[in-house]
């Protein structure tokens, strides 16, 4: 859990949080994020299930 040293951030969502971290010279990478399944709830649900299946299959 080291959150007390060398803060390096992955920013997902509001771009201006990335901007504010850059102003402070804190290392940050901004994700080019889009709603998964293009916001379609039914497909989103399927993806969640698939992801769960994939995790179970891992040793």
């Amino acid at each position, binding site marked *: *859990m080291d*959150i007390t040293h060398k803060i390096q*951030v*992955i920013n997902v*969502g509001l771009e201006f949080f990335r901007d504010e971290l850059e102003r402070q010279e804190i290392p940050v990478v901004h994700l080019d994020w889009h*709603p*998964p399944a*293009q916001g379609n709830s039914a497909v989103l649900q399927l993806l969640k299930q698939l992801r769960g299946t994939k995790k179970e299959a891992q040793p």
Partner: protein
Amino acid sequence: MIQTRVKENFYQDSVKLMRIASSIRNMEGVEEASVSMATPTNLELLERIGILTPEAQVASPDDILIVVRAASEEQCHAALEAAETAICGGGERVALEEDGDTFQAPKSLERALDYMPEANIALISVPGKYAFSLADQALDLGVNPMIFSDNVSVEEERTLKKKAVEKGLIVMGPDCGTCILDGACLGFGNQVRRGPIGIVGAAGTGIQELACLIHQSGGGISHAIGTGGRDLSRDIGGISMLQGLECLARDESTQVILLLSKPADPAVADHILERARQVAKPVIVCFLGGKRRPDEGNLQFADTMDLAADLALRHTGLTITAPESAKTDSIVEGKHIRALYTGGSLAYEALYLFREAGVAPLFSNIHMDGAAELADPMRPHDHTVLDLGDDVFTVGRAHPMINPELRNDMIAAQAAEADTAVLLLDFVLGYGCHPDPVGAALPALEKAFALRPDGRLRILAHVCGADSDPQDLCAQEEKLLRAGVQTFRSNADMVRAAIRMLHG
């Protein structure tokens, strides 16, 4: 005339879209404009302001909708073009690799870790329904999520926090607006001096108020860890606060710990206090509005943030800077206090202090025993404390700490009411906040005083900030004083002054 443009399957964050809308509203001939994702809530808003067009009605929630009403077709078109250019241009930042190739911004957390293998925080501010999945992935990748998003369910929060404990990580949030870690401000945060006081807080602007009071008194903080507003509920059990407490207990740069929250579930509070007793450092406990308890062992209790800051400072050889004694008039009988807050924790503290002082009748949109709920939050009456960051005020609008328009309108509206004697206002500085919150309010303040030629309106203000913040605290306070507003060094001081005015 009204024109619409739809950008299908195109996502941009809400703050960026609101800023674009704001700037095209200032274009010549534009009477009204909206730039937003075509969600049901946003479509309702369009209907309310009279620009819900047939094309807008059939857009889907993953489309960006631009609607403009302007005096002429040419002016409509110009505004639509400007909006589209702003949406499409400058969205993705590209950087050069060392060998001169450009790269596209990563599209997944895994890919982001390729670029930044030592990333330790994922700052998540996407719409709430997507936040769980991202935070869950972050935990799987060994990254601590800070979830600014709200509208994450209790079950999701519990699942994430239990997983975090198993993995030796911490979930900061959801609904976590502020963390200041190793001097870095994440979300909203103030540029404060480093020092030996550590904070764990379930209250965003509360953390900011504590950090600024400490800094302005010459002290400093090691880290301020946000836990999200619901952490100390029975369902969550204070998981993140306990982890934050442990983190600061181990941290060598922290010599005294401050715990901040609104009132916790009693069993959760007891559990946290039990663990706090075992820490070999002084712990100051500020559960705002909670029962006062006597000090015991390494624990000291405070029911307001300025008292909590003072207790913490004393362990480092300092005390809180004493307030200047403020000359205040009395309020004429039958006249009222209206407190219009952008910071939720500051509003909560104010409501608590008014209640304790017997200020009545007392109304709010915050739930607290002893204060009645306003039937319509847009129509305050009697003595009222409003938290303008509440959901009811932020539909289709950025938070008032970023966008002051709504509060400016309310300042004028409340001043116009003859029974308003005192307005209380907070101005919050720091990263993430408005670049000039006082400047943005000045026209409204001038209008407020002009609406009351009887001279019986008083406006009190507290600027929550540090003198090293980007916005220049001194200049902000100067502007207020020149406008005829009385300023106070802490939120609690401002509220106490209002109470003295009421009680003569």
